[in-house]
């Protein structure tokens, strides 16, 4: 039991009333069911201003007599939570979430995008700061809603950007907009605006939130925008360059250990779609992607595995001891596939959810994702609606099209994850040598060489709290990554460094 559990046990000291006599005397309210999505809109429109009970009865009437024995109560519709560059929001799963950070990267002048010296060229239409994420009830494409284009019809959108430049504060220093969404006119046009911030200690970063609603937005969708606004959570993270160059659809959010990840889809340059597994706090640490998949005639099943990811606390799977590392698995399946099963004989069978890819990307394929234990052996099986095997592939061998990000950086990141995994076990990096490292991350080769080598990770400056790793990419460039647990600092660089201080260089190259 940790301190948090102990603190929450304080709730046991609160006197609770004995409600049994009240319960035995009550007559139950009519049960409330979850209406279908189409009916939910109708219900919401007609129930505006009516009481909760009337809404409940409307739901019963409209949902028909077929499910009268189902439970009950105002259950939320299916939701999706995602974190993009430290901004977390929850929205209906049928809505579109777009990671706009690559767009911000192209707007800002690096390497100092978050300071007051942000230089946004005057010919850039997107004046609402540095776009981070937006959610909408329609697929509005991969462009920012903050372009002065007013939402039309029943379109509803919530847009979040790092605030900057002239939009930061009023001349008297006060925030430009209140904390809550307030109607007004601003850089994104007529709509509702709010000022929020991420803070840690004495450091804070301002955010602009814009809600745009077309004239015919149903009340339910308006409420969903407000709910998405209410769900916003801001973490103060480094504004590092994204691994991707264009905005992408966020298909799912995945939590692994302390980190949130998104599964994102973009049009591939050579046809099909690129599926990327992106760290939601450090988007430059996108470790793996499937490139150019989902084209007509492509295999029915293609998938990829991430490197080892450290978990906050040990997780148990049937058949294997508790472990504090895992891998993320994600892939695409054709429209022939109804179910995916990940069969790992030593740990069990898992069934990841299958999620649609927006039709605007022009593929009939869908995606799936799940986190799996770090064991070898097993098969991913794609089944059709009748339970027949459509395709299968061994877990160890991702589809040939799995295309890792630049190999040297990707290897260094995976090597650092292995080092951090080692640190988690003993609260020290001491002892993390090539032999130990390869036992944790067998897909990599390690050495203790003072000169960076292609295809191998050199382990240097190992102390109780620090570690430095270097390697050489195929084009002859040296890369380094360092971690200092005493300060919680991760350092990325492009040099054959022999100390953490030497690990420097053009950090944008890590994008």
């Amino acid at each position: 039991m940790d301190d948090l559990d102990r603190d929450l046990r304080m709730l046991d000291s609160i006197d609770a009333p004995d409600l049994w006599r009240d319960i035995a005397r009550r007559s139950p309210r009519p049960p409330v069911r979850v209406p279908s999505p189409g009916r939910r809109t109708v219900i919401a429109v007609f129930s505006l201003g009516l009481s909760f009970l009337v809404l409940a009865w409307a739901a019963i009437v409209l949902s028909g007599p077929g499910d009268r024995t189902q439970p009950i109560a105002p259950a939320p519709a299916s939701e999706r939570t995602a974190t993009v560059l430290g901004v977390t929001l929850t929205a209906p799963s049928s809505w579109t979430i777009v990671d706009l950070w690559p767009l911000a990267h192209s707007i800002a002048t690096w390497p100092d995008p978050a300071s007051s010296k942000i230089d946004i060229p005057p010919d850039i239409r997107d004046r609402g700061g540095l776009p981070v994420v937006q959610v909408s009830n329609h697929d509005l494409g991969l462009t920012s809603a903050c372009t002065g284009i007013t939402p039309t019809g029943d379109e509803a959108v919530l847009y979040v950007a790092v605030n900057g430049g002239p939009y930061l504060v009023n001349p008297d220093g006060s925030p430009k907009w209140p904390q809550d969404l307030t109607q007004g006119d601003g850089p994104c046009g007529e709509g509702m605006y709010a000022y929020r911030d991420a803070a840690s200690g004495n450091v804070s970063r301002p955010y602009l939130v814009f809600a745009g609603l077309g004239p015919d937005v149903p009340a339910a969708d308006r409420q969903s925008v407000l709910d998405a606004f209410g769900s916003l959570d801001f973490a103060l993270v480094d504004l590092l360059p994204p691994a991707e160059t264009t905005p992408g659809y966020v298909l799912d959010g995945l939590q692994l250990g302390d980190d949130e990840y998104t599964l994102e889809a973009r049009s591939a340059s050579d046809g099909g779609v690129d599926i990327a597994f992106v760290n939601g706090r450090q988007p430059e640490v996108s470790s793996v992607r499937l490139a150019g998949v989902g084209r007509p005639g492509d295999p029915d099943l293609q998938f990829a595995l991430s490197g080892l990811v450290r978990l906050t606390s040990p997780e148990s799977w049937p058949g294997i001891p508790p472990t504090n590392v895992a891998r993320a698995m994600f892939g695409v399946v054709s429209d022939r596939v109804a179910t995916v099963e990940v069969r790992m004989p030593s740990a069990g069978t898992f069934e990841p959810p299958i999620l649609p890819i927006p039709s605007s990307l022009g593929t009939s394929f869908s995606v799936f994702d799940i986190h799996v234990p770090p064991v070898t052996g097993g098969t991913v099986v794609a089944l059709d609606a009748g339970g027949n095997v459509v395709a299968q592939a061994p877990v160890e061998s991702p589809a040939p099209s799995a295309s890792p990000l630049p190999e040297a950086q990707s290897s260094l990141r995976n090597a650092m994850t292995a080092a951090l995994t080692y640190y988690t076990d003993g609260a020290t990096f001491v002892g993390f040598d090539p032999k130990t490292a390869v036992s944790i991350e067998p897909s990599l080769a390690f050495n203790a060489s003072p000169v960076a080598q292609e295809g191998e990770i050199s382990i240097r400056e190992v102390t109780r709290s620090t570690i430095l790793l270097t390697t050489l990419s195929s084009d002859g460039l040296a890369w380094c990554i360092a971690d200092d647990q005493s300060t919680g600092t991760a350092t990325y660089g492009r040099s054959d460094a022999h100390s953490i201080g030497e690990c420097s260089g053009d950090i944008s190259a890590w994008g």
Partner: protein
Amino acid sequence: MRVTRDVEQTVESVYREQGTRLWRAVFAYTGDHEVADDAVAEAFTQLLHRGDEIREADKWVWKVAFRIAAGQLKERGRERSLQEDSYQMPEPALDVMRALARLTPRQRQAIVLHHYADYSVKDVARIVGTSGGAVRVHLSVGRKRLRELLEDRDG
């Protein structure tokens, strides 16, 4: 539906086993003892009148109570306002309630159900009607914030 003596005895035993803890959890989530009273009483009343229809009555009643509470909060158009003088409680518990009040509703739900009520991530997702991934996100973000808030209290 006519409530039989057997059903009443069964539901009362569930209430005696779960009711107090459920009430505290809903109270911690809503910060409003009246909402907690109503949500818990209504959930058990529904259980009483459904009788044998419900399998796993203990999990069912948690799900229903939290959804009723969420609906009431939404209906009243507020997130949460802890009325410090409206319900007497020991100071350490009040500190925890104050800290919980500063989380988002979804973070609060996830923290209370997972860390106080000891439900697994999968069960929390079923209770609040979302995905396991979403619960993990809310737990992770909520835990960090709650620890900071409680450390500030201690500091």
